[in-house]
């Protein structure tokens, strides 16, 4: 009783109490009068939505990622042949005193960059193998206790498919090599 009296005394609008109760039940989203949006506010919002949709749509038809975040949604979009090959790019390093090159993890923690990033600019890296120097530098900085690699080898493992099943051992191809400086 005292609580109700107190509420009545402190409430600026005594008759608003039932409305408050309705709000707390969260069943009436219009319990408090919403502020109307100005015409300009509506126009720029709808305009921006339309422009973004147009850019996104163009991004698809032009098949370009360049408009990120409104670029083409290309991940896993390319069809793969059931009788084709599955390629996977790899990175190896020849260390001093070791007979065989060692395969490194193709990720930012090992060589400073993701496999997908290099695959997306593979032609450029093959034409300019000196770009592998930056991977060697990253490896050196990220692994101060390891020896410095003498040579970086960009490679590809190729698995042949037949009716969607792999046949034989994966083939190992060398795409580019770089003597580390």
């Amino acid at each position, binding site marked *: 009783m005292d609580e109700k009296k107190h509420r009545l005394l402190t409430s600026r609008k005594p008759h608003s109490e039932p409305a*408050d*109760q*309705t*709000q*707390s039940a*969260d069943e009436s*989203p*219009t*319990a408090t*009068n*919403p502020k*109307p*949006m100005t015409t300009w*506010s*509506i126009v720029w*919002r*709808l305009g921006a*939505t339309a422009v*973004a949709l147009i850019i*996104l*749509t163009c991004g*698809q*038809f032009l*098949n370009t990622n*360049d*408009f*990120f*975040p*409104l*670029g*083409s*949604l*290309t*991940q*896993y*979009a*390319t*069809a*793969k*042949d*059931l009788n*084709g090959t*599955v390629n996977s790019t790899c990175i190896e390093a020849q260390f001093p005193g070791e007979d065989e090159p060692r395969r490194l993890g193709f990720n930012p923690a090992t060589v*400073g*960059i*993701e496999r*997908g*990033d*290099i*695959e*997306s*600019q593979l032609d450029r890296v093959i034409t300019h193998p000196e770009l592998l120097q*930056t*991977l060697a*530098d*990253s490896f050196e*900085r*990220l692994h101060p206790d390891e020896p410095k690699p003498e040579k970086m080898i960009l490679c590809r493992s190729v*698995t042949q498919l037949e009716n*969607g099943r792999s046949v034989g051992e994966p083939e190992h191809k060398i795409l580019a090599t770089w003597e580390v400086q």
Partner: protein
Amino acid sequence: MNKPTTAEAKAGNPVIAWFTPQLPLARVAVFRVFIYLFVIIDVLTISADVIPHGWTPDLYQPLWLARFLHIPPVSVVGAQILLAAIIVFSLLAAAGILQRLSGWIVALTFGLWMFYTQGYGYVAHDHMALVIAVVVLPTVGVARFRDVGTTSAKAGWALRVVQIAVVLTYFYSVVMKWIASGNITHWANGAVIIWALMRRGAEWSKPFLEMPGLLIAGQWATLVFEFLSPIVLFFKGKWLYGAVIFFMLFHLMTYIALGIHFLPTVICWAAFLPLEKLVPKRFAARR
């Protein structure tokens, strides 16, 4: 009691009303917590490659907007400063402190971070809805947890735009599959899942490589629900909850099998839900 309000009368046009629905501001306040806390997780894990990118400036392939704005390759120190700014202002924005300012600073710094994670060759498309959410959230203005009963068309627009971005992430990926393959049946009857499993599949999922027929059926199913995803924009009640759960299970499966989590899009599915129900009633009622 149900007299139309001024805003409702103004939004008489059904198209405008659909793009700018009256939604509780508290929904935005809760959605902001989801988004900004996720941004922190994102920059520390999923897109944490920006700092190592500081070591590989030669591999910078700036995207259109980055070229237009002459954004240089990131340095290690620059990336660390950016990371600190994103974390601090995301925490402020999630807590609703200096809402507009913190929101816009996150939009700028996180946007820059995105150019640095995506600007080195590979562009992942799981971040589209998240980037859009971070850009539109500050346009709502002040939104408090207690605003359960206060609705706003600005809140409605921001959430609607995020919803559209979420479903278009799937729908346009079908369009892209069509364009990239020339013939959509080549994609669906092809070896995409086989290719993904061979390249990055978990050990337990390798036996599925012996069942190409099943994987092809999976590709057809994926195409169908991705193509139908825009329908979710018009779902309500149980259908809506059902659709959200369905997509969550899909992403869980691709994560377990392939390590593809799609979390930046997954978190944005929250824009479809009545998040204001998470606000305890005692907070909602107090004014």
